[in-house]
């Protein structure tokens, strides 16, 4: 890489002019004393200058009267030196902090920022580590424009989704390629169960210790990522990890420890006024009643008298000793008829959660001599979640080493080992999901059985009777008691991961530098999900074993070189070959029907089924790039890559050329500020850039080119399907998905324009980018008429247009010797419109439920929320042309009679009528995202804060939808006692609605209530403004062997403003998948406070 420094340094040479009258010389070194060859030295206000030689020495003839020398070196802050009497000026350069001139680009190549014709943004190590996030993805929020991060929940070990410039692929993975030290790295999220149920799942980048990150570079557009070929189509996150520094006797030890505390943030507004029951009548837990439509809890009191007229009669209401079974205080009866003790109001939600803890220790030892460096780091993270018994532990070891036996040869290696252990809790849409049963529990029922939340965590008496049957508010049926779940339905996950690279570099000459980077990433993820006998999802008990083994090998061989061709022109080139292979195997054993309780092991299961699955593909790429520069003003880069992708291959009739696709890119930049006089104090830097690139992508899944046979499930959707083997016979039938060996790559073409302006000596910087990407031939799962013999086929058919604006504003509002304030604002606006789907398809399912799911809908933004809507006046008329909600007022259901005794009784008389057509009811994509990141330093103190603003972006509040049915939300407590009022709308004859109704238990359990056909009324604005990060720290001065340190307090997610009535809207039921914008009993988010101490020896 050093060679490339030389190339770029050469570009910055200012040609020495004649008329030199005095010679000044000196040596330029960095703070550690290492010499800096090819640093620029020039006279301020002129183009007279030179560069240092290999030993860091320079010699410059300066004209008479010159007063100031400017020394610049890529990556270091410019130095201004007054020319005094001495002809010898030695300079020590400090590493640049802001607006560094060198950026890391594709394949880890460091290039002059001036030369780039596309947007790249760097996030520094400090910004990552001070965030306190244990997941590197979370640490990026708000720190780069064009980047959107969504944490799936506050579950310990839950993953986060990251997007660069919104979505790029219609059905494939839209998360960017993660490259660590030049190696493509697995950031998969493996799901064991349905995406809307199961447990939280990690994104595998969590296996990287954030303390090991040196810098993160975000490559946003197609031109920036073109050298990565098909894999880079969704953007690239380039992570460079820390290495030892070369020098003499450089040896240091860093010890960093932090302790963090997590708490849940907001929760849906629940009512605490009405007890379990129906139509204001009380129904006790023994009845199995699911709803909280009972009487006011203030109108109830306890009784223990079995002869009380309201005493429950069913057998399961009583213990063998004759006491009431479901509540130690007794059963509930109307006030005044019992023992005088008023009914308790039980908070089954807030009391359940605990303060989570995170303890994070890391140790790094690094050192370097003249020919070798190393850095060894160890870390240990122990996290106990806000949900009792939920755990996430991570241990990492990393060794980075490099030797340079000769001037020309460098050999380096980075090896990481990570061990992660998780204990997970069931969530989402399943009867063992934690919040599902918890939020539905009436306030008249105590999930802890009088033990209190702390004791109930460990005491089976809270959730289990002596006969081992389950104690919950529905008489043992319905949903698992939350304390049952955290004891009897846990998931265990252990991940071993080894990743890293081996790298060799040989510099033959300026024109030939050969490097080989061999990268590997091997993950073993072993899971065991348990369900004790009596669990609601698996009443006979179950143990599921899942193993995921993923191997990624990524090799690059690159020849590069370049030099100045003349004083004005320079040129460099790069040519490379990349081989990549991905292999993910999953094996699963489902064991059901446990013999006896208390032994949650597969050997205790009586009914075993198993399956295995393998996904594999390879790509082979040849790529090249040439770059020419004229002075420091004009730069042009051309690149090309030819990829061969096994996923396009037909295994029975393979033809290499059918798997290949070519993508070119071109970018240019003009540093127009160089054309002006350098002393222009207003504009210190100005650059325009433009790029064009075409990127191809193979099918989202391998094995799409051939039809296969599968073991069929048999049924017609009314009763459950049956599966082979049946009566000991196995069988296969041809898959309903037709293979297509005529697939061609998806193609997307991106045009990007940008401007980079810096004013007042870089105190103000604005970087703006606009882009448009048109994708065509997207490979979609298209439907076929069943009479073709198939129902689906992969087809090149989709078209999508994405466009966006990104702005980064860098400010240094205050800069004095003692006080410095750095401020950065990142603005992101992107939208992707689905132009075309497969023939005959109006919409394509991504994820979710029937009342509301996310779909691709022609003419709508990507991932539109689609579901049931109220009938509008224009529904079904000529004005109703698409799948959006039609115009006009809501039409009221006035068919039939409101009289229950009438023949044409209509129980929904006076409610909103339901549109027979499902509609696009929400758009989960935010209007824009803003991150405002600030750091201050005041002497030894520093502080930072980051505001994160997401404007718009709908969420379907499925939790509120369901809880309205159960009468648990505050909304239903308010509406059930309101005076009869007509709903705002019109009758079927168009006149204003005049039918007064009460939105009571009948309303909320009708087709316009919870679990009804309509999802529209629970689509809410999921936008927010939050204080994402804030902290203060103190730099401890060093003495002697103690080289100083840092102590600080910081917080994440400390303040949240949102109009969403539910948990924190930064949530995703489907984890990192494409279906976003749902809350259905998701785990709540957390806010965290950390204390962190870092010591250097």
């Amino acid at each position, binding site marked *: 890489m050093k060679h490339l420094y030389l190339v770029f340094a050469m570009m910055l040479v200012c040609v020495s002019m004649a008329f030199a009258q005095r010679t000044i010389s000196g040596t330029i070194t960095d703070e550690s004393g290492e010499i800096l060859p090819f640093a620029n030295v020039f006279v301020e206000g002129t183009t007279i200058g030179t560069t240092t030689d290999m030993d860091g020495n320079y010699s410059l003839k300066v004209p008479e009267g010159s007063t100031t020398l400017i020394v610049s070196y890529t990556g270091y802050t410019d130095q201004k030196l007054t020319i005094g009497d001495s002809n010898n000026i030695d300079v020590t350069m400090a590493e640049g902090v802001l607006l560094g001139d060198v950026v890391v680009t594709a394949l880890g190549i460091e290039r002059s920022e001036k030369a780039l014709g596309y947007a790249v943004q760097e996030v520094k190590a400090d910004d990552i580590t001070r965030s306190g996030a244990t997941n590197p993805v979370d640490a990026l929020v708000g720190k780069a424009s064009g980047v959107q991060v969504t944490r799936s929940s506050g579950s310990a070990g839950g993953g986060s989704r990251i997007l660069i410039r919104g979505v790029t692929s219609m059905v494939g993975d839209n998360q960017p390629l993660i490259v660590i030290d030049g190696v493509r790295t697995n950031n998969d999220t493996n799901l064991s169960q349905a995406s809307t149920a199961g447990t939280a799942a990690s994104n595998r980048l969590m296996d990287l210790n954030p303390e090991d990150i040196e810098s993160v570079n975000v490559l946003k557009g197609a031109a920036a990522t073109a050298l990565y070929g098909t894999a880079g189509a969704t953007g690239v996150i380039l992570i460079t990890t820390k290495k030892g520094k070369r020098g003499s006797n450089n040896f240091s030890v860093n010890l960093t420890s932090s302790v963090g505390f997590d708490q849940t943030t907001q929760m849906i507004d629940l009512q605490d006024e009405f007890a379990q029951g129906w139509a204001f009548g009380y129904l006790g837990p023994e009845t199995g009643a699911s709803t909280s439509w009972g009487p006011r809890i203030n109108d109830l009191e306890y009784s223990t008298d079995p002869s009380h007229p309201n005493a429950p009669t069913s057998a399961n209401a009583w213990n063998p000793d004759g006491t009431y079974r479901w509540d130690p205080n007794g059963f509930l009866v109307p006030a005044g008829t019992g023992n005088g003790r008023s009914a308790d109001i039980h908070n089954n939600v807030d009391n359940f959660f605990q303060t989570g803890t995170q303890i994070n220790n890391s140790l790094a030892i690094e050192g370097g001599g003249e020919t070798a460096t190393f850095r060894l780091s160890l870390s240990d993270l122990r996290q106990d979640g806000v949900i009792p018994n939920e755990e996430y532990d991570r241990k990492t070891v990393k060794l980075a080493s490099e030797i340079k036996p000769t001037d020309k040869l460098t050999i380096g290696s980075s090896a990481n080992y990570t061990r992660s252990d998780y204990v997970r809790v069931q969530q989402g849409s399943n009867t063992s999901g934690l919040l599902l049963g918890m939020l539905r529990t009436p306030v008249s029922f105590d999930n802890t059985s009088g033990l209190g939340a702390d004791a109930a965590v460990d005491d089976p008496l809270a959730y289990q009777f002596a006969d081992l049957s389950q104690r919950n508010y529905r008489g043992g049926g319905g949903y698992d008691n939350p304390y049952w779940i955290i004891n009897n339905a846990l998931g265990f996950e252990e991940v071993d991961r080894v990743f890293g690279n081996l790298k060799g570099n040989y510099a033959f000459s300026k024109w030939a530098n050969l490097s080989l980077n061999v990268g590997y990433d091997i993950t073993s993820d072993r899971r065991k999900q348990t369900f004790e006998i009596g669990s609601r999802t698996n009443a006979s008990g179950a143990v599921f074993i899942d193993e995921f083994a993923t191997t990624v090998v990524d090799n690059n061989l690159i020849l590069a070189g370049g030099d100045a061709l003349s004083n004005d022109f320079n040129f460099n080139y790069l040519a490379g070959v990349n*081989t990549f292979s991905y292999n993910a195997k999953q094996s699963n054993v489902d064991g059901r029907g446990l013999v006896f309780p208390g032994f949650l092991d597969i050997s205790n299961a009586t009914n075993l089924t198993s399956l*295995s*699955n*393998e996904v*594999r*593909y*390879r*790509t*082979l790429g040849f790529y090249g790039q040439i770059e020419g520069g004229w002075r420091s003003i004009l730069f042009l880069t051309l690149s090309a890559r030819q990829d*061969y*992708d*096994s*996923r*396009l*291959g*037909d*295994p*029975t009739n*393979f033809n*290499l050329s059918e*798997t290949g696709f070519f993508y070119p890119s071109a970018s240019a930049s003009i540093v127009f500020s160089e054309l002006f006089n350098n002393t222009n104090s207003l504009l210190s830097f100005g650059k325009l850039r433009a790029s064009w690139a075409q990127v191809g992508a193979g099918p989202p899944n*391998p*094995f799409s080119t*051939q039809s*296969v*046979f599968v073991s*069929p499930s*048999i*049924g*017609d*959707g*009314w*009763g*459950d399907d*049956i*599966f*082979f083997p*049946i*009566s000991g*016979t*196995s*069988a*296969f*039938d*041809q*898959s*309903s998905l*037709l293979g*297509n060996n005529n697939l061609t790559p998806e193609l997307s073409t991106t045009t990007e324009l940008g401007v980079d302006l810096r004013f007042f000596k870089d105190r103000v910087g604005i970087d703006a980018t606009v882009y448009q990407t048109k994708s065509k031939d997207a490979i979609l799962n298209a439907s*076929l*008429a*069943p*009479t*073709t*013999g*198939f*129902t689906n*086929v992969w087809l090149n058919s989709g078209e999508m247009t994405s466009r966006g604006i990104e702005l980064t504003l860098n400010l240094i509002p205050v800069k004095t010797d003692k006080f410095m304030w750095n401020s950065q604002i990142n603005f992101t606006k992107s939208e992707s419109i689905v132009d075309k789907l497969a*023939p*005959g398809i109006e919409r394509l399912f991504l994820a979710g439920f029937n009342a509301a799911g996310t779909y691709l809908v022609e003419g709508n933004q990507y991932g539109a929320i689609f579901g049931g809507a109220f009938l509008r006046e224009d529904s079904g008329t000529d004005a109703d042309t698409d799948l959006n909600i039609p115009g006009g007022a809501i039409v009221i259901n006035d068919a039939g009679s409101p009289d229950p005794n009438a023949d044409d009784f209509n129980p929904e008389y006076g409610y909103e009528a339901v549109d027979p057509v499902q509609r696009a009811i929400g758009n989960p994509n935010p209007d824009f995202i803003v991150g405002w990141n600030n750091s201050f330093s005041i002497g030894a103190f520093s502080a930072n804060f980051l505001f994160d603003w997401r404007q718009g972006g709908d969420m379907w509040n499925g939790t509120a939808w369901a809880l309205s049915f159960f009468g648990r939300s505050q909304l239903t407590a308010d509406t059930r006692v309101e005076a009869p009022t007509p709903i705002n709308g019109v009758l079927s004859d168009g006149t204003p609605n005049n039918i007064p109704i009460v939105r009571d238990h009948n309303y909320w359990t009708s087709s316009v209530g919870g679990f009804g056909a309509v999802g529209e009324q629970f689509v809410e604005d999921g936008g927010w403004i939050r204080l994402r990060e804030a902290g203060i720290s103190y730099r401890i001065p060093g003495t002697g062997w103690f080289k100083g340190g840092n102590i600080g307090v910081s917080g994440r997610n400390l303040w949240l403003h949102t109009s969403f009535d539910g948990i924190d809207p930064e949530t995703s039921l489907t984890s990192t998948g494409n279906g976003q914008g749902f809350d259905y009993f998701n785990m709540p988010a957390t806010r965290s406070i950390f204390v962190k101490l870092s010591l250097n020896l």
Partner: protein
Amino acid sequence: MKIVSKYIAVFTLVLAFAACENFIGGDINADPNNPSDVPISAQLPAFQIALADVYGGAFSRFNCMLSQQVEGVARQWRSFNQYTGLTANRFDAAWTNVYENILNEIEIARRSALASDLNHYKGILDITEAFTLMMATDVWDDMPYTEALQGIDNTSPTFDSQESIYNSTMSMLDDAILSLNGAPGPVTPGSDDVFYGGNAQSWILAAQAIKARGLLHMKDYMGAMEAAQASFSSSADNLAFQYPDANAAGQWYRFNRDRTGDIEFHPTLRGIMLGLNDTMRLKEIDQIFITDHTYMVPDFLQELITYREMQFLIAECAFRNGNNAAAHEAYLNGIEASFARMGADGFADYVAQQEVDPGEGNLTLEDIMTQKYIAMFLQPETYSDYRRTNIPDLAPVSGSNVPVRWDYSADEYLFNSNLTEGSVDFFTDRVWWNR
């Protein structure tokens, strides 16, 4: 020297190209999880069970609801029962099962059978296909047939007339009988044949029975009777699939388990049976539709075509041809077989009643069809019998007509350009043989 370096260059290129092919090609993109080819014996159970399952599933539920043996009383089934909820998408599953899970599989299997001269397999395939086509066209009338099953090569197959489909099934059955009477070929079907264990003679009987059913629909009463007489001689010959247990349970058991309360026993059938003092059979079938139902058991015997159907068919044809003696004998055989199937006692007492057995001379078509209606409880064929004969005389649940066919699948409307939405009126558009 120049030539040598040229050779080296070419050689290097060839080598590089080969290396690329090996890295990307070969089996890398061949699905390691699923076979691209399977033997016919691995295919056969899949579409045989799929056929039995859809016959006892969608076809049984819709047909027996429309002919009022069962009644949709809750949720979607209530709206189906009132004919209002019978929208095209309700028939997607049945339509897809027929084409994708059965006919397309038979087509693939037939290619293997023809390639290796597997004559007995071919016979079984022909019979299965004939049965499937008849089952489907009896409710859907015209259907894609000659242009169907061509994948992406023909995404909008044209519709063939029911008449031509019937003609094809008849010749297919004749061909099958020839194939099955010949040598089996290199591989003989065995336990992979879940209906008959590969017994060619049983299949020939079934072919005759299916033929009889078809000829009856086409009003060839003489031909139908001859075929029926050449078919099953006892219920042991029935074309049927035995579901093993609750892990792979019969359709009605699964429906009652997973959709409890949606469908119940129909008052029409109950009324008819009570009117004939048919209490012994009634108590076997007139129970709440839950998993404890003693007829709709997990290990259900799913009959596709039966001896008792043939006996009633003979009774009807003989009656229509004026042969009352033969009609009477077959009539009683049919009732007796039905008692046995339902596990009911009291056959002798039952037929001793004048209303049930008015004697050879007084036997009416209504007697025959009414007893067939009872005996064919849950058999989709009941709906064809009703449409042919209007016996029993059903009162429409709503409106003035009982539907006379099913609508096509919504998927077909969406993706086949030869089918226009709204082109079917299922109250009036009778199928060809019912016009």
